[in-house]
């Protein structure tokens, strides 16, 4: 009796234990389950799935499959897609869509690498698409097309939906190439095509004695304008390119012609034209609201301004702007700049003597280097410089700073410093020949304080004029005193400045 009662009592308890165990069993599920993807997001789908499941994007889906971009959007890299709706695609001509090459570029222009969320773009950004071209993108618009749905996050990127298609624009270079009205500037640029060494296409085949690479030298047809001024076909950068109409081009040419006189008329014209066009590219996109501001050319920082009144035509390219102008408001002083001949960098020293290059600080704290050549014992010591100069007349200045290394106190009993006169000559014989054109000896580049002390003169000194007949390099000499006495035949020069007479 008692036992059966206990059996019941204990049985009930055991039953409750079993129930408890079962409860724990059912309550315990895989702990990681809670970490699985939240269902309200599309993070368990990839871009292609997300696009394909949207009936409004069925045309886009079909086109993606047509050029096998579906594999790309299923892949495990991240992309941003701006998907045009069926309505938007309906406006694109069937002819164009039938062109697979164009279609690839067109669709590629709607797909960018990496994940770009609209909400994170506080300013307009340029995003590279897989077509190679960039799109402008901000919180509301892509290429000025409003996004109807933004930031649909999926596993491998983000999807934006647009109600108009994005049409890839030509870049500046493509536009130039296709530009129908070929004026003088265009013709000149086209004349710059030629075979050139192409390092990317060449393979290194060895190393020379100096350790530099030797290539198998593949030459390809290139335009030197792209190589030397700016690569206007580069989609990642933005440029503004100016085209001068023929009148403006001729006006610029005539303004520059005197600086580029060469041995033949053709060569002179070529140089003049190059110098006209090399400063017609501006880094960045100059929009009309930037007219009348000072702009700088990409090559040599010529300053110029654009004016609405001068505009003949304008075009927006994928990588910038092209303006056709009837007049160029540029600053000749920034184009034909003074020529500085650094004293410490001669190309030749008489008798191969060694020179001293000093590094100094001027009273303004500016560090400069200069040439010092002393105690050489040579009568008429010289150093030669070989600068590139424009044709025309220059005012010649020098800066010679006599200071600590020199004896700035007069010799015993003398009322003045020991001087070492120098002169600047050009031509073949630097020393004494009367036929050598040049500027005579100059004595006094030290400031006499009048109280028996002296201080160095940091100013440029106008020392005379120089006229050059032809554009090119000329030899300019700094010639020392005709004396073998040390201290009196020293050569000292910070720089020579050749300022063109415009």
């Amino acid at each position, binding site marked *: 009796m*008692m036992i059966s009662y206990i059996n019941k009592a204990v049985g009930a308890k055991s039953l409750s234990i079993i129930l408890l165990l079962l409860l724990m069993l059912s309550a315990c599920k895989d702990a990681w389950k809670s970490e699985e993807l939240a269902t309200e997001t599309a993070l368990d789908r990839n871009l292609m799935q997300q696009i394909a499941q949207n009936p409004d994007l069925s045309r886009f889906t079909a086109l993606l499959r047509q050029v096998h971009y579906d594999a790309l959007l299923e892949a495990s890299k*991240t992309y941003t897609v701006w998907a045009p709706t069926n309505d938007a695609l309906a406006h694109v001509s069937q002819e164009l869509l039938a062109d697979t090459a164009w279609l690839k570029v067109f669709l590629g222009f709607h797909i960018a690498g990496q994940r770009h969320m609209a909400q994170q773009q506080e300013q307009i950004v340029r995003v590279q698409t897989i077509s190679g071209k960039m799109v402008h993108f901000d919180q509301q618009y892509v290429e000025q097309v409003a996004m109807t749905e933004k930031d649909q996050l999926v596993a491998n990127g983000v999807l934006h939906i647009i109600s108009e298609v994005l049409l890839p624009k030509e870049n500046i270079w493509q536009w130039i190439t296709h530009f129908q009205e070929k004026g003088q500037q265009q013709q000149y640029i086209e004349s710059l095509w030629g075979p050139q060494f192409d390092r990317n296409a060449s393979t290194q085949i060895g190393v020379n004695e100096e350790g530099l690479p030797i290539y198998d030298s593949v030459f390809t047809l290139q335009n030197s304008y792209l190589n030397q001024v700016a690569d206007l076909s580069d989609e990642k950068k933005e440029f503004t390119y100016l085209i001068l109409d023929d009148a403006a081009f001729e006006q610029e040419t005539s303004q520059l012609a005197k600086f580029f006189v060469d041995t033949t008329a053709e060569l002179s014209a070529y140089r003049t034209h190059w110098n006209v066009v090399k400063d017609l590219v501006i880094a960045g996109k100059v929009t009309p609201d930037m007219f009348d501001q000072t702009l700088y050319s990409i090559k040599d920082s010529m300053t110029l301004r654009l004016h609405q009144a001068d505009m003949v035509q304008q075009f927006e390219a994928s990588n910038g702007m092209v303006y056709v102008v009837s007049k160029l408001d540029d600053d000749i002083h920034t184009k034909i700049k003074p020529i500085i001949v650094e004293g410490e960098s001669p190309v030749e020293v008489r008798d191969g003597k060694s020179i001293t290059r000093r590094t100094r600080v001027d009273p303004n704290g500016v560090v400069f280097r200069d040439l010092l050549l002393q105690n050489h014992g040579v009568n008429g010591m010289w150093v030669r410089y070989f600068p590139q100069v424009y044709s025309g007349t220059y005012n010649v200045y020098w800066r010679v700073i006599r200071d600590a290394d020199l004896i700035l106190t007069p010799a015993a009993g003398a009322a003045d410093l020991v001087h070492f006169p120098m002169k600047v000559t050009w031509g073949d014989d630097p020393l004494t020949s009367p036929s050598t054109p040049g500027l005579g000896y100059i004595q006094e580049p030290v400031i006499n304080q009048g109280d028996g002390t002296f201080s160095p003169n940091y100013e440029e000194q106008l020392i005379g004029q120089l006229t050059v007949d032809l554009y090119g390099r000329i030899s300019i000499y700094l010639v020392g005193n005709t004396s073998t006495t040390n201290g009196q035949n020293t050569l000292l020069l910070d720089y020579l400045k050749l300022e063109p007479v415009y």
Partner: protein
Amino acid sequence: MYKLMKQPLYLTIVFMCWLSLYTIMVQRAHAQAIDTTHFIQVEGTVKKGDQQPLSGINVQVLGYTSAFTNEAGHFRIKVPHAASELIFNGAGLQQKIVPINGHRQLDVIMYEVDFKSTYQEIALPYGKYPLLKTGWAVGNTQLQNAWQSSGETPDTYLQGQLAGLSAVRRSGTPNSGANLYVRGFTSLYGQNQPLIVVDGMIYDNESYGKSIIGGHSFNPLAHIDVRDIDEITLLKDGNTTYGSRAANGVLLIQTTRAKEEATAIDFAAYGGFNAQPQSLPLLNAHDYRIYLADVLQSKGLTMSGIDSLPYMNDGPNPDYYRFHQQTDWQEEVFQNGINQNYYLKVRGGDNIALYGLSVGYTTSDGPTRNTDFNRYFMRFNGDLKLGTKLTAAVNLSFSSLAQNLRDQGNNRTNPLVLAQIKAPFLSAHEITDAGLVSPNLAEVDIFGLSNPRAITDQAIGTNRNYRFFGSTTFRYQFSDKLHLQTLVGVTYDKIREAMFIPQKGVVPDTIYTAVAKNRSGSNVSRLFTLYNDTRLSFQQQWGSVHTLAARIGARYSHSSSENDYGYGFNSATDDLVTVGNGVGELRQLGGSLGKWSWLNIYTNADYDYLNRYFFSANLTIDGSSRFGQQADGGIRINGSPYAVMPSVAAAWLLSSEEFLASQHTIDLLKLRASYGWVANEQIGNYSARKYYTTQNLLGMQGLVRANIGNPYLKWETIKKLNVGLDLAVFNERLRMTVDAFSNRTNDMLYWQYIPAATGVEYMLTNGGAMQTKGLELAVDARMTDRQWKWDIGFNISFYRNKITKLPANALLTNYGHATYMTQVGQAANLFYGYQTNGVFTTAAAAAEANQYVRTGATLSPFTAGDVYFVNHADSPEDQTAGVHVIDEQDRQVIGNPNPDFTGAISSRLAWNRWALDVLCTFSYGNDIYNAQRAYLETQGDYNNQSITVMNRWRADGQATHIPKATWGDPMGNARFSDRWIEDGSYLRLRTISLTYQLPFTDKLIKNATLFATANNLLTFTRYKGYDPEFSAMSGLFGQGVDNWLEPQFISTQLGIRLGL
């Protein structure tokens, strides 16, 4: 310490023993003739649980009368006193002790031998003793199912067996054992593991010197086979028998001895399967590359920059196949394995000598590819009658273990770490441009990570160790009241380790003066211990009313240990794997030496009045070579300090009182209380003295002071109070034990910060105190007792720990990227880090919170997608500036690695020849820092991540709790925070085994039993790591951090046992 050896005290004790013996011998009383005239007649029946009468049962009153039951189970016996007790014994049945309590008629139910009875005799420090009569808090297991648990080591076997003992398995590495904690912790820096005594001799369970294999800890208990064990008793309270070694309880292990002269041979063979651990859900190659694209974008790479990376190039290219694989690296490093073991046990003897001999071999594969362990073991136990009064017992065991291991530390040479973070699109093998897979293993990858397979397949990590553990006990019985016994034993242990990390496929390491391409290591540890325990025992009974047993004795142990290790680097090729082949200048050598002695002088008395009131008292005086010479608090003998530790226990058998004796429901009701002082002498061999250590300064080798000797350094004292109740009702079919305890540690060791002028940073002092209080409950019930026999056991243990005194207010410790705080008034060792409140899902939310990280003088704001750390405190400057800076001041207690409770549920269902044993273990409320998941959700580098990062924040308003992926994690989103503090609660189907006794008898084979066992079959947990059970550190600090140890795995086994 030789000084102790020479001390006259020890000799005095031994001499006194002999002297008192002599005195007693001379005065010994002669046994009186038994006069039965005043005896009371008692009669009754003895039945089995299913009411079948039992015949031939021996009924006796010890020392007086004896009788047998007839076929109807009826007996009649005369007893000397109304308070006497009857002892029932029968073949195959559990002994039962029944107090008469004045009854004349007794109906007794007896149970089969493996029934857990309240009446059984259990092993206590001075021999077998009835559980009924002890006032101490003890637990006991008779290892009923040891034969089907052959894959266990004794420590792992104990899991869930005893209330108050928490056995946390260290890792899934075979043989790695378990860390044992009796009622929580008693010390911050001292020993927290119980003392282990095997057959009366202290079993050294420490490891000397560090393993050169990362994360590996050596488990001396692996040398004992569970089938060699008869029973295990756990002393949980302040029983001071073992004095200053008993701070954390004592586990008494008794190995099997022959009980009968007849020869019995048991042979068993087992074979089974170890299942590979279940992989963590990590990103596959597809999702990983998307994650990588995000991280690279945050690093600032452009589209073309990313496209130019070889693993992002999907077009035809020579590297395509090398970077477009799909590899599950966890599959690569884990393995399925097998386990086997063979065991032979022979017992028998004659009236002069009884012997038990066992030999065995065990092998098991580890969860990591190419890891395994092998063990050969032998044990001989003998009992010899050398004369009528002189007996001897011999216990000898020798075993040899060999293990193949791999790094399990928090290192880049741990195959598990590598398997988790290695890019899944790579291959373990070299691949040609055409996509053909070579058998050669791949080299270091593009991200600078080693090939995990190079570690599993080419690295070496071996551990070979031997242990001899043997003792001889001589016992001289002067009379039935008095005996003298002495035990002499030695432990000899040797561990040899070898390690090699190859150059191929592994990232070079940077050492002080070189880049280490390949690395080798060698390690040898030795331990030698001499042990003696000598005591004089006296016992006397006065007419069933008074029983007294008393002992006086001394224990002495002297140990020496040595550890030598060497590391070699840059041997010429990966085929030269020993230290000697490394470059001479780079070789690193080191080691340690230790010597220590311990003397324990003890007296004990157990007194029993009317079989109803039980008293026990101990007084122990301990000396140790470790104590500082100026240590106070104890007594001084011959100038040396000795700890004095008294303890008392009392038990009151209420069920024998008249007011309860008349009813039949309650078989047993006992109240217990004990109080004692124990101590912890594990304070470091030389901490109390000044010593010097070698130091290398810019190539100059020299000696520097290593510490400030603290001559006042003393033992930690733990005052333990225990109150308990034992209850058995319904003919013992429901049994319950409840214990409540309070442990107070004083003079707790503490590394005190000292001024830099001393030249050392910290000094060991006795400055702390803490207390642990707790409750334990164990319930056993026989649910049915007919054709079906169903036993259910349940035990549960609670403890709460509190620091009551520290020299500094708060102590911060670090382990494996986790920070712990130990502070007065709180539990020791709490996780201390940043609280989080999800992530800032919108820029507006981030702006509103106005939170920053300070780097130098710059403030970086938290933005959308960063973790929202809870700001708790700002400096006055920041308050003025109106900004919230997330810094160390904002850390809070974010978790507690201590469980609210632990325990187990066991069940045994027997029917006919079948038996089904089930053991479920559980732990509730312990927090775990999932360091592995933290590493897999850092989102700041090339490492592979868990699937959760697919939910990472990417867009404003995205509802998620995973922050954005950012290269380098500049905002510290992955700092130690509650993001990775997880609930480590679990309920595990720990062991399930089915036993079938084959129904045949044969002349050769007496019996045969089949076993089918499965371990760790099911685990219910919310924990996200491999497994919620692990224990990297035996001490307090470091608990609850899930580093990259090998996880627990499911293993199954089929076995057969033949009785010959």
